């Protein structure tokens, strides 16, 4: 009659608990999100350093306060009609998208539900937030990491854009508007 025999029930129960905890805290957060690679290995670094481009050249506020977001093909083809460098990736990009004039299906890191409203204008011009605060060091990145997408909802799984609480907390701390329609439409 070993200890195991004696407390077989309890031991098994505890084992179950432990397994569940491990699965819930370790495995689930990983499984929950899908890592979708970007279609083109774009390097912010090269564009800012070598090409001497500024952030605002591509990502800017329009006069009406709308955010231009990710530039469209016409912006790229401005320079990349012919290869600027020698990299295979650039060639692939030109043959695949520039020459046929196809838009690049970029994966948006911050994909939100349709009813969410976000104004870059308010956050940049009024709250004077630094891009890094939400987008991290994307601007200096060598390559674009894969987008984290919630497998069920299909929305962004990136820590900053995951749920409403992050927004609400910051708004509360800064005493900014927190009514539903302030951020929903």
């Amino acid at each position, binding site marked *: 009659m070993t200890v195991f025999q004696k407390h077989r029930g309890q031991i098994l129960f505890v084992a179950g608990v432990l397994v569940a905890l491990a699965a819930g805290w370790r495995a689930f957060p990983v499984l929950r999100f899908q890592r979708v690679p970007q279609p083109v290995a774009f390097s912010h670094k090269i564009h800012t350093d070598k090409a001497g481009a500024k952030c605002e050249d591509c990502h800017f*506020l*329009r*006069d*009406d*306060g*709308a955010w231009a977001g990710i530039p469209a093909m016409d912006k790229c083809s401005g320079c990349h009609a012919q290869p600027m460098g020698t990299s295979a990736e650039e060639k692939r990009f030109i043959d695949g998208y520039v020459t046929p004039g196809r838009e690049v299906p970029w994966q948006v890191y911050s994909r939100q*539900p*349709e*009813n969410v*409203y976000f*104004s870059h*204008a*308010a956050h940049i*011009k*009024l*709250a004077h937030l630094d891009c890094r605060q939400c987008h991290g060091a994307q601007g200096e990145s060598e390559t674009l990491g894969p987008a984290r997408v919630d497998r069920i909802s299909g929305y962004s799984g990136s820590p900053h854009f995951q749920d409403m609480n992050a927004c609400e907390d910051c708004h509360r701390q*800064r*005493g*900014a*508007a927190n*009514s*539903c*329609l*302030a951020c*929903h*439409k």
Partner: protein
Amino acid sequence: MTAITPKPARYGMAIDLDRCTGCGACMIACAVENNVPPARPEATPRTGITWMRVYQISNGASFPDTRAAFIPILCQQCGKDTPCAAVCPQEAVETDPATGIVDQMPQRCLGCRYCMAACPYHARYFNWWDPQWPAGMEKTLNPDVATRMRGVVEKCNFCHGRLHTARARAAAGGRRELHPGEYVPACVEACPAAAIVFGDLDDPASEVARLARDGQSFRLLEKLGTEPKIYYRTARPWVRQAAAQQRPASEPPERRLRAGLPAPQGSGQKEPAHA
């Protein structure tokens, strides 16, 4: 640090019933702006969605002494003890302290319709059907307003999408405060007779505040004490009588509203009872 929130406004409207020609432009501009779907054939005057609805009222007299007027009804944006906001079980309705606008969040709404029972103006509408647009027409939807799903309540929110746009434009110019007239709801912009004046009731200089103060203005069901922010104006005594009077004990069927009448053929079996 409240500095970040701009000076709160209390948006409201003054609607001149003597100018209103009952053309319905306000209703239509509203529906286009807010992505209201076309009706199912089964829909009736009582199940359709019309954030803004123009009613016809009459003095009850008979030909040739009869007189008619039009009165647009939208959410009256009650400012005190807002009946619908108090009753919602899950905070899908709230009054925005920054604008005084009564917000309705369809994505939070359970569809219990308690708020509709609470609203004395019948200004809240339920999505009885899945919204549907004719093929291709969904490409004309307004990107500033999210479409709603079936089984939720929706209502006028003073074209909040336009408020977002106006604020973004102001922010781009580094401003927190909006200039007067920078933000107007679709119905105000569309009214061919310029019968609707919109603005901040708390700004004494504003046109709307001036109109709200003058003797020709009144509000619907004022005695309920919910401080609606929609003011109606008329110089015609009988119109004021018909719109502001206490509910009459009973009325002859002729007095009945067109809106209350059975819809044209193919619009379901529901017939209103006769008073």
